[in-house]
């Protein structure tokens, strides 16, 4: 196995007195797809938010593509430009059109000419099949369309890694599929992905490995087939029985 693109070692994090992450160790190699699941409050969102330092960890090291995350802001911005993130609540910028949402970061962070950025954005929007909505504003789109735009926005930075924080949880059932389809396409293209989700169908189809977290710890980590066929820990079994 090649050198991991994300290396997480003994990471701990507290919110006040409450420990949300306990000694997390995780290696992710390039092009790997990992699905993180677990009950709510188990720390799975916090974990992936730590990877592009939207949350600070207090102990341990996180190395993303050779850069260690520390207080150094230059490092953080560099990592963030390489790591795309998709949020549960979309978080599109409501004052910008979809196209401007997508070109904002390429122009200001990558210093890309506007025209080039727009071409790139249109290509990504076509990928997620909403190129026809490019000039509308986020408030004018449905939830599924918004989430796909958010994916396109993240892709416009041409990231090496994509993080998904429960991307379908805020969506109506009929829209979940269109977002998942976009994600499956992305996976087939060879992107490194870490996905926090409860969509086990997606996990079975796409994931190389599945991680089950509970109470701030990684309880179980196994290859996808193994994970669903014979989970080892009782907690995993219980969780799977409830969710499937």
């Amino acid at each position, binding site marked *: 196995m090649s050198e991991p693109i994300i290396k997480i070692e003994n990471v701990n994090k*507290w919110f006040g007195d409450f420990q949300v992450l306990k000694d997390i160790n995780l290696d992710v190699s390039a092009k790997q797809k990992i699905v993180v699941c677990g009950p709510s409050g188990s720390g799975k969102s916090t974990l992936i938010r730590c990877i592009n330092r939207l949350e*600070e960890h*207090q*102990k341990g090291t996180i190395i993303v593509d050779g850069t260690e995350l520390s*207080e150094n802001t230059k490092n953080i911005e560099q990592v963030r430009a390489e790591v795309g993130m998709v949020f549960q609540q979309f978080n599109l910028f409501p004052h910008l059109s979809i196209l401007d949402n997508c070109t904002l970061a390429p122009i200001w962070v990558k210093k890309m000419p506007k025209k080039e950025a727009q071409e790139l954005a249109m290509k990504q929007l076509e990928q997620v099949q909403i190129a026809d909505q490019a000039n509308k504003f986020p408030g004018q789109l449905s939830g599924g369309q918004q989430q796909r735009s958010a994916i396109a926005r993240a892709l416009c930075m041409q990231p090496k890694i994509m993080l998904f924080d429960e991307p379908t949880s805020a969506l109506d059932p009929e829209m979940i599929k269109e977002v998942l389809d976009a994600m499956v396409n992305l996976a087939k293209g060879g992107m490194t992905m870490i996905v926090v989700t409860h969509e086990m169908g997606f996990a079975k189809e796409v994931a190389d490995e599945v991680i089950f977290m509970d109470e701030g710890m990684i309880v179980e980590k196994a290859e996808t087939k193994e994970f669903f066929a014979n989970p080892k820990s009782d907690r995993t079994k219980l969780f799977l029985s409830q969710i499937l």
Partner: protein
Amino acid sequence: MNSLNFLKSNKQNFYYFLYLGLFLFSISILDVAINAFLKINITSFLPGILSIFLPLILGFVGLNFIRTEYSGIKSLDIINKNINTNNFNAILTLLIIFAIIKATPPSLSWMIFDANISGDTKEACTGTGACWTYVKVWFRRFMYGMYPNDLHWRINLAFILVIALGFFGFFLRDNLKKYLALYYVIIYPIIAFLVIYYLISGGAFGLVWVETGAWGGLSLTFIVSFFCLIFCFPLGMVLALGRRSSLPMIRYISIGYIEFWRGVPLITVLFMSSVMFPMFLPEDFFMDKLVRVIIAITLFEGAYCAEVIRGGLQALPRGQYDAAKSLGMGYWKMHIFVILPQALKLVIPGICNTFLALVKDTPLIFVVGLAELAGMLALAKTNPKWLGFAMEGYIFAAIIFWIICYAMSKYSYNLEAKYKTER
């Protein structure tokens, strides 16, 4: 920032840095405190500028030493998180602490230690501090204006009755609760009006008549704001419904009325009441000055009240209107039984704020020659026996107004927060 890192603690010497930092920090505060309270400058041996900035520098270095991302020591982490997140914050923290320490001794000695409160004349004030004797002597005037001293119990009784009647609703039995809105919107204002009118102005039931010219002080502030509130509420309700009406003429007239009064300052409205009202009324029709003022303020605040109530009406979900209509209710039935009971509850915080604005606006009535608290102060200030105590008077009035307004604004804020979570 990186260059400062050698000054940063690491695991081994963490406690040295912690103790050194705390030591420097306390030294800096001690220095300022001694300077302020005892007027001794312990760093006077240093050259001028350095002596002034030394506490700041010491404190800054100290705070820099104790700053760590996460130590595990609870109280230290609380300090770091709350007042010491970075250099900029540390400086501001120190400046605020120093300012508080510096300001404490002079204000305390002026307000308390060097102040006088004994005696009845100006000569009793010998200290360098405030002369509270002045406030003490004039206290009754500030509260009741020129109202005869032996009749002050009538004002007190009237206010106690009005407040008691206000709380009356809480003790109603459950089967009478449905009349609560009726009570507060219609019955209570009428009773309160009668109580205040007959008790304070007298002229019936064997009470001596006291003309409105003698009313004044803080009690007048309350009388004016209270009356204006109970009168402007129904006016505001009518205008709010008018503004949301589907009938164009009614809507335009309401909008015109509301925008007109909201566009002019209260002081011009009061001018209007004193110079224009008499022109507009029939020749021999006399209207008391206080009544004119109350009418003028009511017309003015009615517009603001209307906007508050309109806000409440708009906050109701459309579904409520649809549901009421689907049950076959007409305009009036829908509003009386479904819309207004819900909307009025929502606007209580807004009405509270309107009342607050009213209380803060009433000092303006001095322009037509009515002397409430601020007006009485102006009167007392120019009294030849008591010249030179304007400061004491205004601070006294400021404290009183502040307590009233702060309490009210907190109340309405909490109410608003409560409604927000209930929905």
